[in-house]
């Protein structure tokens, strides 16, 4: 059993959703309950496999790839089906595995118009294959294919099931990310041909490209920076995000916020930094600078929003700024914080989008000034909103704190060779950003949860129900995890620590070499 899991576990996790989707293709469209069941069972199976992997995972060797499979895929161009899991990918895999079934549970009674559960649920399953695949791929081209695989389902999810302005949002999302990934592919190819012994294997590349020229390294890093940075999204490439989030159906927003954005940050940790440590060090001040601009810009953007979902979307820009700042410090402290930040942001913002979706279901609007008194009409949902806002603003004891605070702290003492003064300035700006965060989140809470319901809702009290059964089922795991990770952040850190040290090996060696 163990060896089966060892050899096939990740492959099953990647392709089981595709199998589920294939089964659903054969089921007629009218059997809606069956579609819901098949999709839920498939995603639970994936989650089960990932949990089993997490239990078998050797935490003492979290820096090494485990559960590896490495066979040729396209031998003509030297591309391999090379997958494996280490301490950085494991928490993100678990996050993906958790979020998808929760989305299916939530979808049971909350399907967006136009109602077409078959197509909608199949798209989510295809998305899952792309997301899980990206987190396990250890070959650049394999990574690229999975990274791109998520585009189409998301495009259709926003474009078909989205809000009023869905077509604009969908095409904007598609064009932005496709542009980034096209340049990323060029960067990957350049790496391949400049390597001493051409290869696409992520683990072998750091040694093979150690000798490339400084200019080439900077340009290649730039290509990857665009690909990953647009996905994160970093300021100034973030403009697709508020539109996509606002227009996407709830399920789309949750998956987008919880997992898709992490593909970008993960790319930096998995690919860009380990392979080109030298270029990473030269780019770090720019990345850090854009990250703090993103923090402040996102926060100011939040303060200007009148739509609850758009506000949460802008808060994502700010939060991903902290993650990128952590990555830019190029220290194990910062990278640990970044991975923690990704997981925490996935749980918290995913949860916030769930709540926003449910508020929209009841009030048919997300305009903040028309909402209010949620604690009166639906007290439990109001409390959840409060809880998540607190977590999001980084209250100690909840998960958000462990993503934000260490990232800021890491900027005090960045990796050797980085300009300390610059990063300390970043640190101060980022710290000011937390004040803004408290500001916009409390303001949101105050205007939506506190007070009394607006007059226009009198007579509609029956529709404004509190948290329903499906919602409890879908949300409880997230709420519990936000609290548990807040108290025991070690659960994540013990996975990631080995992985980030491995990812930073190149940077550490440069510093040790007096570079």
């Amino acid at each position, binding site marked *: 059993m163990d060896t089966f899991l060892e050899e096939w576990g990740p492959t099953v996790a990647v392709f089981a959703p595709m199998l589920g989707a294939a089964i659903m293709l054969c089921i007629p469209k009218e059997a809606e309950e069956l579609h819901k069941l098949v999709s839920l069972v498939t995603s639970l199976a994936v989650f089960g496999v990932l949990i089993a992997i997490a239990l078998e995972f050797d935490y003492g060797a979290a820096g090494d790839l485990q559960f590896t499979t490495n066979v040729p895929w396209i031998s003509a161009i030297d591309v391999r089906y090379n997958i494996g899991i280490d301490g950085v990918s494991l928490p993100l895999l678990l996050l993906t595995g958790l979020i998808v079934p929760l989305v299916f549970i939530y979808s049971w009674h909350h399907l967006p118009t136009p109602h077409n559960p078959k197509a909608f649920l199949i798209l989510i399953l295809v998305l899952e294959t792309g997301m899980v695949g990206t987190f396990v791929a250890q070959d650049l081209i394999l990574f690229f*294919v999975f990274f*791109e695989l998520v585009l189409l389902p998301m495009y259709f999810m926003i474009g078909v099931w989205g809000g009023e302005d869905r077509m604009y949002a969908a*095409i904007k999302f598609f064009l932005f990310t*496709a542009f980034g990934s096209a340049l990323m592919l*060029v960067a990957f190819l350049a790496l391949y041909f400049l390597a001493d012994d051409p290869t696409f294997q992520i683990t072998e590349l750091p040694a093979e490209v150690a000798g490339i020229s400084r200019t080439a390294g900077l340009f290649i890093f730039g290509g990857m920076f665009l690909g990953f940075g647009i996905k994160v999204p970093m300021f100034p490439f973030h403009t697709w995000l508020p539109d996509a989030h606002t227009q996407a159906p709830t399920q789309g927003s949750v998956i987008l916020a919880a997992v898709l954005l992490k593909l970008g940050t993960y790319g930096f940790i998995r690919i860009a930094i380990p392979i080109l440590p030298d270029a990473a060090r030269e780019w770090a001040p720019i990345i850090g600078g854009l990250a703090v601009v993103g923090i402040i810009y996102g926060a100011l953007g939040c303060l200007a929003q009148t739509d609850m979902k758009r506000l949460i979307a802008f808060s994502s820009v700010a939060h991903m700024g902290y993650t990128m700042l952590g990555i830019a410090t190029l220290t194990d402290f910062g990278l640990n914080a970044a991975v923690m930040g990704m997981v925490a942001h996935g749980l918290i913002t995913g949860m916030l989008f769930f709540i926003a979706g449910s508020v929209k279901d009841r009030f048919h609007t997300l305009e903040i000034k028309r909402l209010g008194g949620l604690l009166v009409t639906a007290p439990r949902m109001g409390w959840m909103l409060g809880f998540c806002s607190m977590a999001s603003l980084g209250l100690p004891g909840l998960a958000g704190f462990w993503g934000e605070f260490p990232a800021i702290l890491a900027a005090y003492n960045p990796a050797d060779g980085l300009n300390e003064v610059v990063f300390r300035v970043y640190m101060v700006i980022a710290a000011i950003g937390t004040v803004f965060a408290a500001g916009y989140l409390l303001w949101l809470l105050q205007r939506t949860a506190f007070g009394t319901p607006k007059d226009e809702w009198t007579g509609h009290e029956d529709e404004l129900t509190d948290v329903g059964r499906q919602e409890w089922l879908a949300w409880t795991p997230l709420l519990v995890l936000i609290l548990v990770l807040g108290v025991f952040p070690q659960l994540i850190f013990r996975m990631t620590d080995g992985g980030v040290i491995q990812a930073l090996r190149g940077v550490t060696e440069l510093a040790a070499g007096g570079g």
Partner: protein
Amino acid sequence: MDVAEFVKPDIDYSTLAPELVLLVTVVIVFAVDLVSERNKALLGTITGLGLLGAIVPVLLMAVEDRGLRDLFDGAYVVDDYALVLKALFLVSGYVVVLLSMNYVAEGDYWEGEYYVLLLSSILGMTVMASARDLVSIFLALELLSIPAYMLATWRKRDAKSNEAGLKYYLMGVFASAIMLYGMTLMYGISGSTKLTDIAEFTGGSFAGEPIVSLGLVFIVVGFAFKVSAVPFHTWAPDTYEGAPTPVTAFLSVASKAAGFVALINLVLIGFVGTEDVYQPLFFVLAALTMTVGNLIALRQTNVVRLFAYSSVGQAGYMLAPLAVAGASDEARADSIGALVVYLLIYGAMNLGAFAVIIAVARKTRSGETSSFGGLFEYAPGLTVVMTVFLFALAGIPPLGGWFAKFVVFRAVVLPGTGLGYALAVLIAVNSVIALFYYARIAQLMWMQPVPDGDRSPIRVPPSLTGALAICCIVTVLFGVAPGLVGDVGQFARLSLAL
């Protein structure tokens, strides 16, 4: 003057088998058309069978590993590269026949002549794949072009179709003349019509001479018309729009592929050592073609015109590897491999897209993009396959197009030159522009209401279903298991890097 006595060449007929099968089919179709007035429906079937029959010897030759077969003193070569291309021409010809069956029968056009001309044109293409000599290249070119001029005017009662054919004919003849002049210059410097002989002079005693550059430019310009490269593309949109849609599909895939094959043969085999001239030339052509084609495509409202410009844009990607082909022998082989792989995958995606256009037009009788509105509501199957073709053309994994783009990227980045990287970035930018108009059609189909509210289903005849199935399977298969076509590309490079 010493005139050599005519010696009857030793002809290996088994090597010529695919061409002979096509020739026999031409005769049979002609005869059946003459004899029988009623069995017009038979003609398309015979043509299709003839094309499939011609694939058999191609496959046999591919399986039987005899290396290089050359006839007529090296003027006609059948190697793995030629076999791959012959298979491409025959299969895409077969798909075009499937597309044509109902179109020609229901449109009350001449049927017998249509298939005869189509077969002759395909015959010209299979010859082109093997032609390694100026005379045989020219012969093949005319054999494939002249029937195509006539096919373009096949909607005889429509002024637009007449315009299409005339424009295509005038431009084509003009291009042929220019190219012929280039060929005479090549013959003039070398005294031989064989490409390998010419290569010894262009790269040897005549290296760097202006006359070589002149001949090269004339030949490239001549074929730039054929592959509709900017600024020699002006005929394409009008011809594509006016011609019968199956013929448009044929022109945009098979005829274009034949042009590229001739370019590869002439420039990469016949003009070895002139990379200083042809690399910048192809760089400019490629950059212009992809950018102009894609930008103009953005503004199109007629779906066939849109695909005309999209195929101009695609031609730009295919020209790109030629701009770096001279860096080394490895780069030369790699660009040829990339080009052939691109042609194969592009053939499947583009023919598929045209098959859907033909199927939809059967109901809507409209060429406007808006006629695709709300297609998902009444033709979900067609919508899904069209989506596959559109995003494959845009190069989104895991559909076939990504691998085609990938090999082109690979080929242009391989030599590590600044020009190569510049082209790669340009292709990346262009892919995004192209994505916009492909996605817009997808958007119309999935996210817009039906324009006239007519939701009656589309009846897709079996022949069209067959064409769609072939194209869709090939497109998806090449995306998921590109090893198949990757190895095919490898054949092409091995046999040319002799």
